[in-house]
């Protein structure tokens, strides 16, 4: 009996020992992580590569143009989507803002979506009586934007029996708020063709 139990315990230990997983992966199947910078050609609708190319191209052109001297304050407006597709244009402007911040060439004022939160926070600090006076952010000290950044994306789609051709044009301009003059402007064109 003892011998039988011992051999059972030993075989259980051996099996357990063999099953040790040395890989930091849970699960299996058809899931894998890919390169987020890879050229995405899954369909010819607006995709991650288009977003990345537009943001890179616009940011670098603007940063290197020399217009943004002395890290001016910029207010970013939504990019108008004039295509027939649903495109979250806020993703494009967020990428542009992030890359301009990283380059150290501009500072950003609260845009129309952040403004309500900013006002709410100022009101809460100044009107609720909850906070220590010396730590309360004073009203009337917000920095106004010197420039506003706005743009649009449009597309031309052509279809035939053999082809589907999509042409995107993204335009962006930097406007001096005081003078109303466009100080910088650039555009990025992308063509994607599918052969059926």
């Amino acid at each position, binding site marked *: 009996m003892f011998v039988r139990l011992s051999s059972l315990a030993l075989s259980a230990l051996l099996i357990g020992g063999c099953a040790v997983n040395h890989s930091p992966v849970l699960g299996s199947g058809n899931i894998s992580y890919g390169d987020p*910078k*890879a*050229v995405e050609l899954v369909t010819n609708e607006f995709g991650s*590569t288009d977003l*990345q*190319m537009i943001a*890179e191209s616009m*940011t*670098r*052109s603007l*940063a*290197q*143009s*020399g217009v943004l001297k002395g890290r001016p304050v910029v207010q970013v407006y939504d990019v108008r989507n004039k295509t027939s597709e649903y495109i979250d244009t806020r993703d494009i402007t967020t990428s542009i803002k992030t*890359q301009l911040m*990283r*380059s*150290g060439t501009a500072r950003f004022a609260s845009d129309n979506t952040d403004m309500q939160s900013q006002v709410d926070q100022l009101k809460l600090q100044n009107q609720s009586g909850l906070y220590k006076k010396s730590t309360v952010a004073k009203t009337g000290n917000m920095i106004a934007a010197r420039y506003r950044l706005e743009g649009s994306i449009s597309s031309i789609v052509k279809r035939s029996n053999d082809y589907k051709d999509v042409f995107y044009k993204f335009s962006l301009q930097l406007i001096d708020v005081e003078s109303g003059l466009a100080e910088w402007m650039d555009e990025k064109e992308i063509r994607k063709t599918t052969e059926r």
Partner: protein
Amino acid sequence: MGLKCIAVVALALLAGCTTPPPPEPGSAASKVLATGPIEDLAIGPMRMARENGFLTVSTQLSNADTRNKTLYYRYLWLGPEGFPVAEAESWKSLTLYAEQTSFLPAIAPVPQAVDFRLEINTP
């Protein structure tokens, strides 16, 4: 005669085994990282300048083939120590028509970049 033939073949094999010398530091070839064969693609002169504090680069690329060629490329931006100073760029697709010469312009994302590498991949 047979011995001579064997000697010639052996010499040819030995010559084939020798690896080409590494590119001169600072030369155009030393800036190119090809992830795979880049047959029929000639990398020409590279222009590097600093404009408004940012490194700008333009590379001449020629397709020696009589057919159109699609390639993927991206620039990597390096600091003074030779390490990347910015996140890797997204890969870009480029079509070169038969026997066409084109230029790949680029602007560094941060002023800290002092050098670059051009990564090329052909499908």
